[in-house]
């Protein structure tokens, strides 16, 4: 059996491509952080608009459902191929980050919605009775109470988004996956680059997942 399945791993080659992959990992992290920052803002905007009057909430609700029901890859293609056709030009990285921000913004808007709904009705009534303005109520009463329970969900989506960044390779962003593809095509060696990419993803996302779990446990205990 072992003459058919030959286990080959070129340690020297793996070591030689590691610096290049680690540099690409920085791009992956940048895309994740910027994409997530966008998603946090877009998600809040979606969540607030969905609470508005029907002519606003209905179309926004449709956009959110649409973004959640279609694949990120297709959305990235749309941004990448369609926007330039209408004269809007971004570089691949910016396009990818916008795609991540919109897709996960739609997911995060649901997290916001649940968080806002969890704030007790009495808080609104008390704030209104004290004659606080709407903006004031949101800023000082509702959001400070709504956000902490959302943190673990945000953390989970952050990790999910991190693991989705390889899709940006499809629109030529030279993050980890694209770099591994380039190395593979150049050397005809796919085992080491792809295995290292998997390893790098695991070594970053697994500790992050443990951290989110601990955070979740602590929040549950405090309540």
């Amino acid at each position, binding site marked *: 059996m072992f003459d058919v399945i*030959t*286990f080959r791993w070129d340690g020297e080659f793996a070591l030689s491509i590691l610096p290049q992959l680690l540099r690409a990992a920085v791009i992956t992290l940048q895309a994740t952080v910027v994409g997530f920052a966008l998603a946090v803002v877009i998600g809040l905007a979606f969540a607030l608009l969905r609470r508005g009057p029907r002519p606003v909430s209905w179309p926004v609700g449709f956009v959110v*459902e649409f973004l959640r029901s*279609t694949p990120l890859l297709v959305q990235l293609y749309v941004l990448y191929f369609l926007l330039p056709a209408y004269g809007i030009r971004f570089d691949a990285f910016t396009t990818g980050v916008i795609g991540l921000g919109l897709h996960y913004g739609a997911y995060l808007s649901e997290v916001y919605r649940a968080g806002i709904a969890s704030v007790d009705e009495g808080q609104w009534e008390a704030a209104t009775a004290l004659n606080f303005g709407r903006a004031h109520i949101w800023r000082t009463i509702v959001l400070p109470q709504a956000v902490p329970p959302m943190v673990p969900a945000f953390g989970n989506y952050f990790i999910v988004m991190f693991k*989705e960044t390889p899709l940006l390779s499809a629109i030529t962003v030279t993050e980890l*996956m694209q770099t591994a593809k380039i190395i*593979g095509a150049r050397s005809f060696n*796919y085992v080491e680059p792809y295995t290292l990419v998997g390893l790098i993803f695991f070594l970053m996302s697994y500790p992050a997942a443990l951290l989110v779990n601990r955070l979740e446990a602590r929040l549950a205990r405090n309540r």
Partner: protein
Amino acid sequence: MGFDLVPILLRGLDVTVRLTLTSAALAFVIAIVAGLGRLSPFAPIRFLAGAYVEVFRGTSVLVQMFWFFFALPLFGITLTPFVAGVAALALNIGAYGAEIVRGAIRSVPDGQIEASIALNMTPALRMRRVVLPQAFVLMLPPFGNLLIELLKATALVSLITIPDVTFQGVALQQTTGRTTEIFLWLLVLYFALAYPMTLAVRWVERRASAYRKA
């Protein structure tokens, strides 16, 4: 509105649906096996199931798919694109499913298990007659959500040359240049498949919570 493009895209959609169903069936079996494995009284089985779940949840589906398709042949195992795609999707979604199975089984009240021990049921009978039927109701809504995630994840197989609907769309875009129509159709087709599933999951969720309250 580019209706002439639809027959070609529908051919791709057929591949997408087949891929989704095949991977879903496989992922379901994997999820049950791995989920039960994580609750096994034998430590080595628990460890194996745990390692599988963490590795496949901790790395990216696309990386897994490329590994199966490009790296495995160098170990002497060559998979067809379809098999590599199904394997990566099923193993990835199966790992998430295993956590759902584990959570659902653990949420069956202890009293149920104690009662079935008192009734002298064997562990297998207890699992089949008492635990799984109750856990299954809890698993349905999250499994539904996972099925939607799976449907969307199948778009990735276009990158390993499986002619699914995304692959057909990109190929058409490159040959005809009718970018707007093609991508709008792609989005509409995915939405038409996924949104009814979302509505079905919400319906099941409402039914399941009514069942729990009753």
